[in-house]
């Protein structure tokens, strides 16, 4: 019996889908069998991030409507043999799926895989209800912005009300320099107001955009800082103790120490 993890945030555009793709890939790279499920019916994107958009034949909707078997709809990843994607329909909307149907689908998936990662859509409507109804664990993605933190707070409240209290926080797109200057919320500020457990901090990284467009999750890029952060989160999910990255290290090269010497920001 596997574990279902929902990746949610409330606010849109904070990096839920990116987190889903990368953590899914990261867990698969650790040797776990993983399926990533796109919960964003009507606005699907997870397939693009995984680079599997032209392999979609059947979708989650077809499985629910018994038009195909679950095996037929899950797409095997290009790179990792133990990673699968269950895409959703683009031509339907979130109200076409009920909580019961989703629960059945996820429990079927949990039989087959170690981890079922569900990408939750933005908002707290039907799509959110479906994605969170059957999860055992939640990852809440926030950006270091007041708006995002506020929405995350609402979402945590909703999850608590459902009885899903195993939730952890992913701070995404943190710009170390800006937090140092006090222009951006610090991780401590976010934890202070949300009061939940932190599982990872992902630095702001331009190469994420490139990897998204290419359809290659950044977690597979050994050199990228954000990739390392996602690998660490994946390891923490399976229960390893991993130290938090020192985000200032990216700045501690020779060049920046010279800059520091001259007091340049």
């Amino acid at each position, binding site marked *: 019996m596997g574990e279902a993890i929902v990746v949610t945030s409330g606010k849109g555009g904070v990096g839920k889908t990116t987190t889903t793709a990368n953590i899914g890939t990261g867990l698969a790279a650790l040797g776990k069998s993983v399926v990533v499920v796109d919960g964003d019916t009507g606005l699907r994107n997870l397939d693009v991030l995984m680079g599997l958009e032209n392999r979609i034949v059947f979708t989650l909707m077809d499985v629910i409507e018994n038009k195909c078997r679950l095996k037929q709809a899950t797409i095997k990843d290009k790179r990792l043999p133990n990673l699968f994607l269950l895409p959703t329909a683009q031509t339907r909307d979130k109200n076409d799926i009920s909580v019961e149907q989703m629960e059945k689908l996820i429990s079927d998936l949990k039989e087959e895989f170690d981890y079922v990662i569900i990408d939750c859509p933005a908002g707290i409507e039907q799509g959110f209800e479906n994605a969170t109804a059957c999860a055992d664990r939640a990852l809440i993605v926030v950006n270091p912005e007041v708006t995002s933190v*506020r929405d995350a*707070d*609402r979402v945590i*409240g909703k999850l*608590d*009300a459902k009885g899903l209290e195993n939730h952890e926080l992913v701070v995404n797109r943190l710009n170390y320099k800006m937090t140092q200057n006090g222009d951006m919320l610090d991780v401590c500020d976010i934890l*202070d*107001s949300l*009061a939940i457990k932190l599982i990872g901090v992902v630095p702001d990284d331009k190469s994420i955009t490139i990897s998204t467009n290419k359809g290659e999750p950044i977690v597979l890029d050994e050199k990228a800082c954000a990739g390392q952060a996602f690998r660490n989160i994946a390891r923490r999910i399976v229960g390893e103790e991993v130290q938090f990255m020192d985000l200032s290290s990216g700045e501690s090269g020779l060049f920046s120490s010279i800059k520091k010497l001259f007091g340049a920001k």
Partner: protein
Amino acid sequence: MLDDNIVIKGNRDGINAVINMNKFRDFDEMLEVLIEKLSKGRAFYKGSTLKITTDLKFINNREFSKLKDILFNEFMIKDCIMEEKNDKNNKIFNGIYEGRTKFLRRTVRSGQVINYPGNIVIVGDVNSGSQIFAGGNIIVLGALRGTVYAGHGGNSKAIVAAFYLQPEILQISDLMTRSPEEIGRPGYPEVAKIKGDTIIVEPYLPNKFL
């Protein structure tokens, strides 16, 4: 069941129907149930005066005239009087020095509403976007950033106390205020209470901090 949502009783002044609008989804649902109830004693109600006691804020003019039409035409009721419901539960809560208290050992998050006709103690934060209604005092052992209504129902002696008092809206009894725009974070717990006809905020032990 829907039974106690509409209670029809006779008293000295005539026939009185007490309607609890909170139990109904909307006006139309209430109307259906009312008609069903009245239908049982059609002959009895004919020509009588009916007093309807309910929360008038839930019924607008159009709905009221619809109700009247039905009562007059279908049940031949002579007159209909609407009366605002004075809930007996809405008595002012008096236990602010010693009395009924609810303890919450969690953070109250955005979108959550707590309503209690007594004192409330929260061991945790109250985040922005949440609402707390208490008949008496509100004590927050943490940061208070939400909307709070202490002394809800009319007790103007109620207080609001928090380690970090920065509410969106703070109301005690019928006085309302909000946090000042310039945020200076004091390093000590604060208490808000009514003095005269304004809400004042002071350190919880004035002699210790001022």
